[in-house]
């Protein structure tokens, strides 16, 4: 299996561990990811809040490179980038005027027959799900995890075409294939406060507090995530949330790809586990000792 790969801006900074762990588990699964040559930012929230044309043109400009490289499928791990790519393709199909304008901005073919995948869509289906199960070595059976999908993987469903929008199960399926017990909980698709991290931090603190509280109340040892922004809000702001709300969580926030990597027996250096501000090491040691 071979896919074009759009890492997204955070893969070089706040979410290096997501990029590293995704590449590592893909290589174990025999999935080849070919990084898009000279890709650029999808524009994210700032673009769609300022100009609809810009918000479409930035993702489609990247898809034009995918097209040039001869790929028909691209993997986009960041939930925000994934949402921008899917939205651009959706709008292109439904708005003839936009199609015309984009045609004049982006040279050549931008490839509206390209399929955009989030890695969870590939991992949670056969044949990969069976392969994941057969590669699972390290016993993580004692680890109780809640899967946090956030907003943009599933919503709005007519755009994202991802799982079921109010109660998704794909990440749960992947982690269960590793033998991890995933718990039912009420905050799978609640918002963490997203891009308000730098402007209205109070909103992030409140919404992320609700999520951490929800995870704690069902007895989770860790939260698994699939979005760099969710990770940053829940991990790097956790200490501030504890102080603000007088709470005590110390809940490790792990990318689902890191849990896959641990289970496959990859080293913590390969998975960059030491990058998290809330260290997962102690929790993982405890689970290993019990196994």
């Amino acid at each position, binding site marked *: 299996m071979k896919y074009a790969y759009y890492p997204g*801006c*955070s893969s*070089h*900074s*706040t979410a*290096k561990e997501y990029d590293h762990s995704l590449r590592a588990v893909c290589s174990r699964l025999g999935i080849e990811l070919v990084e898009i040559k*000279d*890709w*650029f*930012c999808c*524009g*994210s*929230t*700032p*673009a*769609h*809040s*300022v*100009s*609809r*044309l*810009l918000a479409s*043109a*930035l993702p489609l*400009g990247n898809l034009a*490179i995918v097209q040039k490289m001869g790929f028909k499928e691209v993997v986009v791990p960041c939930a925000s980038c994934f949402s921008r790519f899917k939205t651009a393709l959706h709008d292109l199909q439904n*708005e003839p005027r936009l199609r015309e*304008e984009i045609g*004049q*901005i*982006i040279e050549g073919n931008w490839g509206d027959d390209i399929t955009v995948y989030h890695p969870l869509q590939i991992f949670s289906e056969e044949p990969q799900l069976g392969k994941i199960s057969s590669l699972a070595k390290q016993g993580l059976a004692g680890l109780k995890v809640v899967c946090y999908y956030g*907003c*943009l993987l599933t*919503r*709005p*469903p007519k755009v994202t075409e991802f799982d079921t*929008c109010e109660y998704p199960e794909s990440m749960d399926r992947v982690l269960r294939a590793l033998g991890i017990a995933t718990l039912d909980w009420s905050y799978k698709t*609640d*918002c963490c*406060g*997203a*891009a*308000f991290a*730098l*402007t*209205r*931090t*109070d*909103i992030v603190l*409140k*919404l992320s507090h609700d999520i951490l509280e929800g995870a704690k109340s069902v007895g989770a040892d860790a939260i698994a995530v699939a979005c760099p922004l969710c990770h940053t809000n829940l991990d*790097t*702001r956790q200490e*501030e949330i504890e102080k603000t709300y007088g709470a005590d969580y110390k809940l490790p926030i792990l990318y689902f790809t890191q849990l896959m990597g641990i289970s496959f027996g990859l080293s913590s250096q390969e998975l960059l586990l*030491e*990058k998290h*501000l809330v260290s997962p090491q102690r929790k993982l040691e405890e689970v290993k000792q019990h196994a």
Partner: protein
Amino acid sequence: MVKVAPRFSEFAEAVKTISGLDVNLCFQCAKCASGCPVSYAMDYTPTQLIHAIQLGLTDLVMNSKTMWLCASCQTCSTRCPQDVDLAGVMDAVRIIAQRKKIKAKIPEVPIFYRSSLRNIALFGRMYELGLIATLKLLTRSFTKDMGLGLRMLRKGKLNIFPSFKGALAARRIFSQVKAREKR
């Protein structure tokens, strides 16, 4: 879908021109406001804001906090029984406010948008440390998150230097879009 008698509001027309969305389909069931994670911080709930757009209350909408506090989480757009993409309406209202150079009730939010886009137009890929520095200058919040920023730097979560990969192609798109939108 329930048909609602058309009303005419210039503001609703402006929203439609930008987004293609028809706010007159809304029959005020308030499902959007009930599911909105940020409505607690807004001065008008999303349901009230869309009503104000229907009625053409431009000043009220332009001077509200609501659109700036919308997190674009898409919960309202997903659950609307009339299929009104309210998150898209919020985008349209933000775009109108910025074009009219309205003084935003939550000024740091449009400052964040503009600084981010300038950052992407310059570097091609988001250069976080540059963005943070710009935001601190523009919002005069120099000490905010200092400790956290340093911890993240030590963990290698923020790059000291920007990359310029993809900058040329991104800049071309920015200038093309700008030229078209000026016309």
